[in-house]
């Protein structure tokens, strides 16, 4: 398996797509909606660019197809689902650690904005 650190730093959108796939398989619009919710609407993927990102992640072996099935949102319409691979999980973990270290550093430099006045 390729070294997960060789993928770092990840493109922010690629990271978000991997991130929302960590806890469950998702289909195209499900990924878009999850990214939107995780970022409070700051990042809104569009369909074309979502599949551009998925294509790249699949090429690198970070994401794989998990077959097609109907969803509760689409009724009888079938959708192809995507799942994160073991390598993908390792890459997300490495990227999250890298970002966490960066966040700690930013905190030490008092760069973090206080939230909620506390």
């Amino acid at each position, binding site marked *: 398996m390729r070294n997960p650190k060789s993928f770092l730093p990840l493109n922010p959108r690629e990271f978000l797509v991997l991130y929302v796939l960590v806890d469950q398989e998702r289909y*195209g*619009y499900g990924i878009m*909606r999850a990214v939107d919710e995780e970022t409070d609407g700051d990042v809104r993927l*569009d*369909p*074309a*660019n979502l*599949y551009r990102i998925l*294509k790249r992640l699949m090429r690198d072996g970070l994401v794989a197809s998990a077959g097609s099935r109907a969803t509760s949102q689409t009724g009888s319409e079938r959708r192809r689902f995507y799942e994160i691979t073991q390598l993908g999980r390792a890459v997300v973990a490495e990227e999250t650690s890298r970002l966490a270290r960066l966040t700690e550093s930013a905190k030490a430099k008092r760069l973090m904005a206080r939230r909620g006045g506390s």
Partner: protein
Amino acid sequence: MSPLRMRGYERREALYRLLLLTLPRAFRHEFAEEILDAFRDGYREHHTRFGYAAARRFARRSALHVFGCAVRLRMPRRPVAFASSPRSSQWLINVWRDGLIGLRAFAQKPGFFVMAAGTIGLGIGAVTTVFSVVDKVLLRPLPYPEPERIVYFENSSHSLPEFHDWRDRTDSFESLVAVRVVDYDWRAVDEPRRLRTALVTSGFFTLFGAGTVLGQPLVGPAVPGAVPVVLSHAMWQLHWGASPDVIGAQMTINGTPTTVTGVMDPRFQVPEIMVGKSIDVWMPLDESDVLYQDRGTHLLEVAGRLEPSVTLEAAPRHKNQSVSNRASHEEGCTCLTSSRKNPTIRWQRFADCRSIFKAGG
């Protein structure tokens, strides 16, 4: 909710399908249907949860990003290392790199790119327009032989006796010509027509270097009973179908029988400052007409060609000597001077009369 029942969906999906054609073929074959599914799901959810306006915004945003996606898919993910390339091809590498940076900027901010391109386009257009006008009005010489020797008599129109005074009693000019523009009736075959007619004195065509494509230009003064007429090139094409048989054709213009003797060369540009923009026919001015005998009847525009040895700056003195001295002795002779203190008649170089709205060339 069925896609067919969502307001405005079918039209937007059709447009979105068209935009997907900009994606690379292989990518399209693999993902186009899934992309459309995601587009449909997104539109449906926005329509259901937030209403038609939100669905419309989603569709617009998705459509705008397709082009950026198409550009990104055709670009290498990271710049290729060119460090080992030979120096001779460095310029090509730089061009390629600049192109990639441009495409990437376009993909990231298409709105800014369009605005920048539009601004540059407008700038180029404005500069081109200004240069075209300046070139025509100021830089390009008038389309007449030795235009620097042609002068135009200002101060409105002049009478025929005045014209005769200047023509016959000065030695500053190689030739002087006068023209009057009138609207004449022409009893055509089908219906009467108005003809914008230029009545010119002899030498007009020579002074402006006007030629003909058929027949002869007007060379001599008008001869009663045998009035020649020269057609404009447009008139010849429009009413005679560019037939060479037009020479010798009879036209009754303003009740006077005339004979077509020539057709103007289409390259000849009329001196607009004297006759306006378009002339249908050219005829000789009948100097014996009683209408022109009154010294106070100013109907003619006058231009002249300076003698080769006379400069525009020296011409006033030259004329004052040649005309004014005689004028002091001869009753009725018109004084001709360009002095600003006594501006009886002013003239200036023909080329200097040009303006945006009175371009002679």
